[in-house]
């Protein structure tokens, strides 16, 4: 740990970012072992009580402990953002590789498709997607994954097109490397400097999109808490009981901001686009 800190001591972005994201991930971790109160237990006596020793984050309009709900609510946010980005990445790699390696008409068609997806606001498309195939965690993940895929497809395609004529790729073809291996072993590592920061930012955007969907009632369904639907439930009490909104937002902001910081840190440290010489 100490070595890690020393190694990164010149990049405050990475340290602060990892700290923020670390807190959120820690919340996810302990949600599996310990919750201070039952997050679903309602009670008249505890309705909208302000933060106190027993309930550090206060209670919401149904008397449920906000701390327990925030801890539990980080789970869907992190789960959806991470698995969504995985789907977006896999789709992006597949589409981008085909477009970048094959070129020609297929390239044009694929890029036309991804341009038309990117032309619409992501949230809107995700809403349509959820409306069509039904609510639920899986459809959110799938929907967000598909909506986010085109931007990665673009990065992968342009990266591959740049590398295609690099001499080491020509040599790899010459010694008989087949296309799948060429992509995975020879091309993908060269994309990392551009792809990695974009991916980390993508996780953050995905978390925001999930929160927005849940806020609109199309995301994670009540009573299961998520940072997004807690905001929706709390908004009516924002003046009388601001803690019902502040604490979920705090965690969401830490997660998103932390990821942005990490992305920026990676970009500064490794430079985007450059291969090390």
């Amino acid at each position, binding site marked *: 740990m100490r070595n890690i800190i020393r190694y990164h001591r010149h990049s405050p972005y990475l340290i602060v970012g990892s700290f923020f994201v670390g807190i959120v991930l820690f919340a996810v971790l302990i949600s599996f072992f310990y919750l201070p109160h039952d997050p679903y237990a309602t009670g008249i006596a505890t309705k909208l009580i302000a933060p106190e020793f027993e309930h550090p984050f206060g209670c919401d309009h149904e008397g449920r402990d906000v701390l327990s709900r925030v801890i539990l609510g980080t789970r869907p946010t992190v789960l959806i953002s991470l698995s969504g980005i995985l789907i977006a990445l896999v789709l992006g790699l597949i589409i981008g590789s085909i477009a970048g390696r094959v070129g*020609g008409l297929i390239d044009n068609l694929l890029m036309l498709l991804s341009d038309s997806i990117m032309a619409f606001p992501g949230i809107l498309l995700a809403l349509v997607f959820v409306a069509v195939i039904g609510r639920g965690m899986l459809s959110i993940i799938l929907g967000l994954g598909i909506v986010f895929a085109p931007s990665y497809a673009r990065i992968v395609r342009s990266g591959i097109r740049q590398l295609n004529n690099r001499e080491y790729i020509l040599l790899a073809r010459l010694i008989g490397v087949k296309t799948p291996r060429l992509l995975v072993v020879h091309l993908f590592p060269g994309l990392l400097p551009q792809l990695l920061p974009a991916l980390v930012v993508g996780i953050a955007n995905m978390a925001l999109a999930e929160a927005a969907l849940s806020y609109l009632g199309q995301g994670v369904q009540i009573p299961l808490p998520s940072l997004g639907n807690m905001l929706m439930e709390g908004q009516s009490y924002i003046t009388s009981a601001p803690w019902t909104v502040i604490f979920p937002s705090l965690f969401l902001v830490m997660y998103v901001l932390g990821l942005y910081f990490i992305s920026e840190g990676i970009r500064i440290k490794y430079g985007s686009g450059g291969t090390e010489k």
Partner: protein
Amino acid sequence: MIYEPAPLLSVKNLTIRFPGSGKRKDNEVLSRLSFDIRDGEIFGIVGESGSGKTITALAIAGLLPDAAKIISGEIIFRGNNLLSLPPKKRRALLGKEIGLIFQEPLSSLNPLMTIGRHLMEYLTSHGNPESPRERLKARKSRILKMLAHVGFHNPDRIYRAFPHQLSGGQRQRALIAGELLLNPSLLIADEPSSSLDSVTQTQILDQLRRVSQSFGISVLFISHDLKLVERMCDRLAVLHNRKIVECDSTYEVLHSPGHPHTAALLRSASLQIRDENAARPAPPVDAVPLLRIDSLNAGYSSSILQTGTEEKEVLKDVSLRILPGEILGLIGTSGCGKTTLARVVTGLLPGTSGQIFENERLVVDFSKRGRLKKTSVGLVFQDPYNSLNPYLTIGRLLEEPLKVNHLFEKKERRDRVLQMMTRVGLPKKYYDYYPSQLSGGQRQRVALAMSLMLSPSLIVADEAVSSLDVTVQSQILKLIWEINQKSGISFLLITHDLKVVRSVCDRVAIMDSGRIIEAGRVGDVFRTPTNPVTRMLIQ
């Protein structure tokens, strides 16, 4: 007592370091450097790459990178110590009095500005004292005159041209013209001709010398090429390991070198690699050729290049034989189709028509849309920085050809890789290194080893030694020669450098605008060239 005028520029005890941070030690790049440049002379600095040549030039021009620290010394130009002058004054002095010419003319030019505007910039930015209110027209005529002076026949066209419309040599001449407009008293030329082919190189250097004589300008000429320095310079300093090891008149230095390093440099510059006594007899010219290329045409279709509508024909009716066990040199000016030929022979680019025979057996007929099997010929590129995947270790790079062709077990593969590393003279510890940790010469060894892994009968080396400095160049050529002698692998050595051909090749083919214009034994072709283009190349 003989009156000795004060030198134009004198560098005294100059020491420059890149300070290290933390554990990294200070990196000294120049150590107590001293030399003088007299009025009107051409002073040469030679040395291998990394010996500190460019840093010297940058220090004089006041363009050192921020990280560099001048530890001690002074640079006295016309009585002023440049290092103690306030920056503003120094810049005013340097801009007018010292001109700079770099190796790569394209990167010194803004692609969106015409040559005329570039040159106009020279005149306006340094407020020429002789003509404070010179009008545009007068300036333009001065520029045109200067362009004519550096050897352009139609300065008007050059004035309006954009950098990409000119050849490398023309760009370099335009830049020289720009520097001359300011009437400098010192011109620093840092490898001004290294990126040009031999014919253009000669033109540029002649131009530079003529200019120096007619304007009385001193030139600081920096190069790694002793041949050029010998032709150009009056006096010469040999830089080795951050120090000047020898400094005297060019004739003295080159004919009675006083330092072992100079002698070594001279030896490698002449590229005496062939040991005629040890050499195997060259294969008879009428032997069954290993590879016979018959009336090959090739080019790039317009969809890739997107220029015009028709296909761009690069190779026109090329026929060539490569004999078993020979080293065949292929020379020609840049852009004549050498690299395209290499790509067709290795199977990276299909030809449009023509046939290729291996041992008189037809392997591909491009007229029938045939394609060449890719793994049969090895290929080594010019720039080892680009031809090795930066994300793989040397061990994995060398194992890759065996792995993808499913040859041998894992352990056997590792053994073979290590054997190969020994064969090309790489220490075993480099197995786990990344290409970025190796020097240019070592990388080129790795590239060579990689092409050898599949034991091909022919290796195409496309300008494989051009980007290396002389000492390393001779080591790599020696390695190529040894491999050829020991295992009888044929080489097709593509180069623009006649020295390289003379040093290792058995036969040579000369290419000009997509055609092979002459081929034969090296001695015969060089002694009695039949084609005028060949004659021009050889001179």
